């Protein structure tokens, strides 16, 4: 009898503990979501009344009321397009080589290990690489758009490679076998069968990599440094600024008004990222429907 009641208490305790921890585990999820909500509220509240047409079409200014983000928006578009043009061919080619052509030997494994190591290198180190090789050596001290785009290109290359590899791996091997059986060479198989199948997935990986590049601040900061730019860059050798740099400049100012325009610029940055991510998800979803048969 005593034993029975003791085991009942013990059982009640264990169930109680189970429920308490269920609450705590859910709590940690809730903390993450609440902080996200807090962050977004903060940005939106700070930017109310500051995000208008004048803000989108003006250059930076010492007076927060007159300031705008035309130069950084133009710079961001320039950098992203240049980065994509340089990253995509090399990244996809590397992935095709590793997945479809490379023999399984020590060199291939070294390249693969190297790519995952590059993905873990702090972004500011890429900035140092860009500063020493592109700015100082290649462009003779000129902090140009091209130097910034080259740096970002090396930074997001591992992401593009890994995403493309996954896309290629997802193409069923029966497709390849069918093409080989018809006498196609390896390159013909890749060109006519594997790549067309993998393109949507690769595209969505590329868009996600570019959205990472848009938000990167540290490497651009090292390569470009903070500059006061009141023009829209017209050639890849021009000096430039991007949205994250403009945000850093404004956040560092002591006056409260700068905090508001920083929040407004953050909204623009987040909307750009959201659009790109939605596009990537849309492309992927469409592709998944197609691959079902």
């Amino acid at each position, binding site marked *: 009898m005593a034993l029975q009641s003791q085991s009942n208490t013990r059982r009640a305790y264990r169930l109680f503990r189970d429920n308490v921890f269920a609450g705590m585990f859910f709590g940690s*999820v809730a903390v993450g979501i609440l902080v996200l909500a807090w962050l977004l509220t903060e940005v939106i509240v700070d930017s109310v009344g500051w995000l208008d047409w004048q803000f989108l079409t003006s250059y930076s200014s010492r007076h927060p009321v007159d300031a705008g983000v035309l130069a950084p928006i133009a710079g961001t578009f320039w950098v992203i397009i240049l980065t994509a043009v340089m990253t995509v061919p090399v990244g996809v080619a590397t992935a095709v080589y590793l997945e479809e052509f490379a023999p399984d030997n020590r060199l291939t494994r070294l390249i693969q290990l190297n790519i995952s190591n590059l993905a873990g290198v702090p972004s*500011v180190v890429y900035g140092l690489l860009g500063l*020493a090789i592109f700015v100082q050596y290649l462009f003779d001290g000129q902090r140009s758009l091209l130097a910034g785009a080259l740096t970002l290109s090396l930074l997001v290359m591992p992401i593009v490679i890994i995403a493309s590899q996954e896309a290629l791996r997802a193409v069923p091997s029966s497709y390849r076998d069918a093409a080989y059986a018809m006498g196609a060479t390896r390159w013909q198989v890749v060109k006519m*069968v594997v790549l067309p199948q993998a393109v949507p997935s690769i595209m969505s990986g590329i868009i996600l990599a570019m959205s990472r590049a848009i938000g990167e601040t540290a490497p651009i900061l090292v390569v470009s*440094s903070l500059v006061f730019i009141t023009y829209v860059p017209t050639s890849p050798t021009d000096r430039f600024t991007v949205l994250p740099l403009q945000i850093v400049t404004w956040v560092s100012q002591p006056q409260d008004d700068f905090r508001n325009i920083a929040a407004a610029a953050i909204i623009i940055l987040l909307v750009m990222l959201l659009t790109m991510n939605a596009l990537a998800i849309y492309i992927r979803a469409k592709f998944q429907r197609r691959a079902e048969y």
Partner: protein
Amino acid sequence: MATEQRTMVIRPDTEGIEARRDAAPRTSYSLRKDERDLARHRKRRHIEQVAVLWILRAAAMISILTTIGIVAVLVSQSIGFFQEEVCVLNEGAPIKPCEPGVNGEMSRVGVFDFLTGTNWSPLFKPYRDLGQSFGVVPLVTGTFLVAAVAGVVSLGLGMGAAIFLSEYAPENVRRIIKPILEVLAGIPTVVYGYFALLAVGPALRFLIGDEHLGTFSALSAGLVMGIMIMPMVTTLSEDAMISVPRSLRDAAYALGATRFEVATKVVVPAALSGIVSSFILAVSRAVGETMIVYLAAGGRPNLTLNPLEAVQAMTAFIVNVALGDTPHGEIEYYTIFVVGLLLFAITLLMNTLGRWVVQRFRQVYE
């Protein structure tokens, strides 16, 4: 779609041959021509194949070249740093113009002094003559102080969230919550910097009191960074937990275990290598993170283990100096590379360790 196109390519080809056969009876001359065409076609195909292979190989080499470039740049500029003669400050000496033998000496910075020195005051022009000191320890402790706060936050929250998602949450809840948490990982770091400096910092000062906490602190930077790397811990840990086989859980439930007991006594121990690895990788990410510490942790080197104080992290120092438009080839220019080399080495070591843990201690189930 793609299949149709391929059959289209093949059909006109055979039709073409048939048509030619009907039009003119085959002579021995045209037969040789066909063979020649075929040989030429094969040769072209072969050349194409070889050319493509070399182009693809060259592309793959770019990633190797990137690594070589990073190491070469960091090491060569660091050698420049250790070869430069500077006025090294004697401990406790008054700050006066450098007079060799009096308050400082013109000498090179030793590698050992750099790694173990506890005073980081790389006074730049025009104060350089007052004497400089290059002991990197305060920057390293600053970095790890912030990373430690971030590690505690991300381990606690990330593990909790991972257990909730893999052991408690029904599938439909999981499908909603996971993407929301992953949004946290997609927010640019500069936005987190803004958040740490202008929202979390003031909120903490309100809670703890202005006299204990300044505008910049390792605590506010670390807390926000912890939130940023939490999804990484959650995703990687949850992957490890989900791959623990159902049969282990069922056995424990059959013995009357509660969900909490199954989670902590069966699933977590079985997935431990994945969890530890996710934690190491996340902290390595925190060590390499720049914008949060640059904006919110402070800009002065400070040798302390108190998270309420302001500290300067290695990455923040690099950005700080890089912004000053430093002239190429001066000691100022070299310092950012030598700090960068140390940062690169630390993160590489941690990433390798993280991967090694998961490979070495992975439980493989049939």
